[in-house]
């Protein structure tokens, strides 16, 4: 500026000098000079102003240069080939080079190789479209030693625009380092992802929890299945969820086990109905079985069948594979809208299917348990025998219907009672002993199973007080340590059997009696007839003779004839009687050693049914010092049976509680065994003691009068004696003695023979005091 000023000043001065030389004081000239001087002043003033502006501009320019160079963003100009034409300091710093070193370098060289094509595309687009544009590129890892940065490449945002006017074309770019922002963004996204994952996980976990909860809220398997599908349907936000069984391509038909749908979901549910498997369905099943993951949107044809004729927009099927059963197929429908199944959905579906499989296993176990329980319950309740559980005190814990029916009580009434209270008083002891035995069984012998084979026949009392014969079989139920938990009792109504037995017993009794009557009775009848014939003859001849004596004249010869006949007939009668005695003697067996106690037991055993029918208690008492007796065991048994039967007959009118027969076996004197049968019957008051043992003497209706007579014959034949006496306190005692068995005498039959006197003696009289009997 100063130079310019000096030049113009010099020029001006020269001009002014010329003017003075030419005119020198002319007015025109003076005016001209004056004008010039004015111009000069104006010019000098303008110059000053220009200088001021220039200073301002200089200042501004410097400021902008600073702004350019030190801008927080990089400025970059590149030519169409991508070479750097200009760059500010920030930009150079971003690229990690000095500004001068960058000029004419290819910008792409600083980028990661994979981003270079993007840059070229970006440049081309800017050049072509002539519109500003953005591009994100990442810088190549620097080759510098500062390798920390290398791991984290910078990301630049390029905001590019075409520079104005000038060919060749240049593109100006603003480079901003968005690495941090990107990172923040990435972190934010990661956080979001994490949050979403957490959300998804929560959905999953809560879904599984809901599923598990649904599995446990109800007990009925079908309800549980329905609940499960409702949860699945809800969790996956689908319109319909169903479970098909079996997921087996070889099954001829399948069934929808359960389903759940939103209200107004199109298509009818197909539950409770078999669906024949056709080819599309088999394909569907196979596709689910072959895939580990849910199968998305499979063939709609098969689904349409399962969906009740409606082909859903979006579909998802997944095989549910329980361990203990064939797989099922879980199907999910979206009927109205399409859905792209998200990874989340698929994960959830997978997890739900897995859990569903577990639950199906649990349900199967539960069903098995239920069935087992039901079977047990049915067995218990429907059993044809009474079953009960008893605690150790004998209280009923549980009773079945049959037991109630047998005993005539309701279950509630029974549960308030003990089994003992329902048993006939006479059977209490037996019952308590039995229970004690069952309870101890295991304790005594742990190896042995509780005695299920042991049972007890006892009388229960029904509600109406009637007697019910029952067969009770008990077993103890123990915990693992062998402690008694409770008893199981099986009670069988054997009244019918008992009735049958009693009828049979009566029948036997009748037969027995018939046997006695028909053999003894027949014999007696035969004897009577045999003896009666000659007696009749005698009496008739005698009667005729008497008639003739009344009518004189008497034909003596005729009377002689009659008397002769009478004498002959008397002899005939005598022969008959002799024959009868011989007959009864034939019956006497050779004496053998007999254990009276054993024979007594055998006799009691023989008439057990009669004893039971008559409600009589029989007791056998035998002293320890009783020797073996001598006789025929079968015949002596007959004698005992006879006495026992008589005793029972005598107690017909005795109250049942007092009906007792006692067989007392003692040693009598040195060489005898005494057996006494005591009853509590009518006693001997109505009898003629002198005739008690006579044949045909009887006080019993239907009696033959031969039992005691035969007994006497038998006892006599072994050298014993038989007699009757009143029992102190009521009733009668029939006793007999037998000689003690002496081996040396066993073959000497004669010594045991009936002495002639014994038939003459009235054997109703008690024998001598040697037997020590009360008289």
């Amino acid at each position, binding site marked *: 500026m100063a130079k310019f000023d000096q030049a113009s000043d010099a020029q001006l001065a020269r001009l002014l000098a010329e003017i003075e030389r030419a005119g020198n004081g002319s007015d025109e000239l003076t005016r001209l000079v004056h004008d010039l001087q004015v111009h000069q002043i104006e010019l000098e003033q303008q110059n000053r102003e220009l200088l001021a502006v220039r200073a301002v501009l200089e200042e501004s320019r410097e400021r902008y240069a600073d702004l350019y160079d030190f801008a927080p963003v990089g400025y970059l100009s590149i030519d169409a080939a991508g070479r750097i034409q200009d760059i500010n300091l920030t930009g150079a710093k971003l690229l990690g080079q000095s500004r001068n070193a960058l000029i004419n370098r290819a910008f792409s060289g600083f980028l990661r190789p994979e981003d270079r094509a993007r840059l070229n595309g970006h440049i081309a687009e800017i050049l072509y479209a002539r519109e500003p544009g953005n591009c994100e590129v990442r810088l190549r890892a620097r080759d510098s030693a500062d390798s920390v940065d290398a791991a984290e490449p910078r990301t630049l945002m390029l905001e590019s625009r075409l520079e104005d006017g000038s060919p060749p074309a240049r593109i100006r770019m603003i480079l901003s380092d968005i690495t941090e922002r990107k990172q923040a963004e990435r972190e934010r996204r990661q956080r979001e992802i994490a949050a979403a994952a957490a959300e998804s996980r929560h959905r999953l976990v809560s879904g599984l929890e809901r599923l598990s909860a649904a599995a446990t809220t109800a007990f009925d398997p079908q309800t549980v299945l329905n609940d499960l599908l409702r949860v699945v349907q809800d969790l996956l936000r689908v319109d319909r969820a169903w479970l098909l069984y079996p997921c087996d391509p070889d099954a001829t038909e399948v069934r929808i086990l359960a389903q759940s749908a939103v209200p107004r979901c199109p298509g009818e549910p197909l539950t409770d109905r078999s669906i024949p498997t056709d080819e599309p369905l088999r394909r569907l099943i196979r596709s689910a079985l072959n895939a580990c993951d849910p199968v998305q949107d499979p063939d709609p044809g098969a689904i349409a069948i399962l969906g009740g004729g409606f082909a859903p927009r979006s579909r998802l099927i997944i095989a549910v594979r329980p361990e203990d059963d064939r797989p099922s197929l879980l199907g999910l429908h979206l009927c109205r809208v399409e859905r792209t199944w998200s990874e989340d959905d698929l994960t959830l579906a997978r997890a739900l299917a897995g859990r569903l499989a577990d639950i199906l296993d649990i349900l199967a176990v539960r069903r098995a348990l239920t069935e087992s329980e039901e079977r047990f319950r049915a067995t218990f309740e429907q059993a044809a025998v009474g079953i009960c559980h008893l605690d150790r005190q004998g209280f009923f814990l549980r009773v079945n219907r049959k037991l109630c029916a047998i005993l005539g009580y309701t279950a509630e009434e029974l549960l308030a009672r003990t089994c003992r209270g329902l048993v006939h008083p006479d059977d209490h002891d037996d019952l308590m002993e039995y229970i004690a035995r069952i309870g101890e069984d295991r304790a005594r012998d742990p190896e042995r199973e509780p005695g299920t084979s042991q049972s007890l026949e006892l009388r229960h009392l029904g509600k109406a007080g009637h007697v019910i014969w029952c067969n009770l079989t008990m077993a103890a139920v123990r915990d693992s340590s062998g402690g008694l938990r409770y008893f199981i009792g099986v009670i069988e109504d054997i009244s019918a059997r008992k009735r049958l037995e009693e009828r049979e017993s009566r029948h036997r009794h009748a037969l027995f009696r018939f046997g006695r009557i028909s053999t003894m*009775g027949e014999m*007696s*009848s035969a004897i*009577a*007839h045999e003896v*009666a*014939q*000659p*007696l*009749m*003859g*005698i*009496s*008739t*001849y*005698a*009667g*005729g*003779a*008497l*008639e*003739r004596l009344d*009518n004189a004249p008497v034909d003596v010869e005729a009377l002689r004839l*009659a008397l002769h*006949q009478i004498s*002959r*007939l008397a002899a*005939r009668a005598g022969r008959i009687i002799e024959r009868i005695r011989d007959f009864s003697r034939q019956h006497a067996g050779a004496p053998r050693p007999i254990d009276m106690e054993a024979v007594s037991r055998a006799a009691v055993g023989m008439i057990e049914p009669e004893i039971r029918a008559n409600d009589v208690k029989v007791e056998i008492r035998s002293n320890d010092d009783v020797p073996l007796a001598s006789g025929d065991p079968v015949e002596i048994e007959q004698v005992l049976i006879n006495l026992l039967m008589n005793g029972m007959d005598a107690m017909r009118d005795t109250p049942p509680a007092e009906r007792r027969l006692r067989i007392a076996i003692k040693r009598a004197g040195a060489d005898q065994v005494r057996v006494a049968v005591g009853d509590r019957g009518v006693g001997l008051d109505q009898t003629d003691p002198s005739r008690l043992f006579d044949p*045909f003497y009887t006080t019993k209706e239907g009696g033959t009068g031969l039992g005691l007579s035969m007994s006497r014959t038998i006892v006599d034949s072994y050298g014993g004696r038989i007699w009757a006496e009143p029992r102190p306190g009521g009733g009668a005692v029939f006793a007999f003695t037998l000689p003690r068995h002496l081996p040396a005498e066993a073959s000497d039959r004669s010594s045991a023979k009936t002495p002639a006197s014994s038939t003459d003696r009235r054997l109703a009289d008690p024998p001598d005091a040697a037997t020590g009997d009360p008289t």
Partner: protein
Amino acid sequence: MSHQSTVFVIDDDEDVRESLRWLFQSVSMPVEVFASAAEFLAHPDRDGPGCLVLDVRMPEMDGLELLEVLRTHRIGLPAIMISGHADVPMAVKAMQTGAVDFIQKPVNHQDLLQRVRRALAADERFREEIGDPRIIAERLEQLTAKEREVLESIVNGSTNKAIAGALKLSVRTVETHRANLMRKLGVHSTAGLVRVTLACRLRP
């Protein structure tokens, strides 16, 4: 009545048979003895007059069976059954079948004689009042079932009208039956009808 009333003894035991013969001979009663029912049936005088003395128990044929046989042969004689011990049920049965009398062993001879006399008297009275029991029995057998019913009702004392009502017959029909009955049984009055029937009922 060409014959005197006879006691017919049937007993398988010879001693008893002969003792009874002796007894009846002792009181001058005509007596015939037989060892079996068959023997008796072969006898020409089997239709009486007289009475039967039988042992209930005989080996081949007991007294009851014999009564049955006699009945089929239209032997209308009164019978006295002699029974042994423990034959009471049989005796009851014998009474029910229509045997006149029954006596138990051992027999008191006077008792037996008394019963025999009574039986003989009954037989004689029957023959006098009604006729030969054999003929009466034959006549009764000729009655139709309806006539028997009517006869039964008459004997029970029913009037014609009551009989007609009970048997669902007209009174006239009953009257016709009654007339037929009297003709067939050879009696001339209702009293005769009743007597014949009752008498026959008491006989084997």
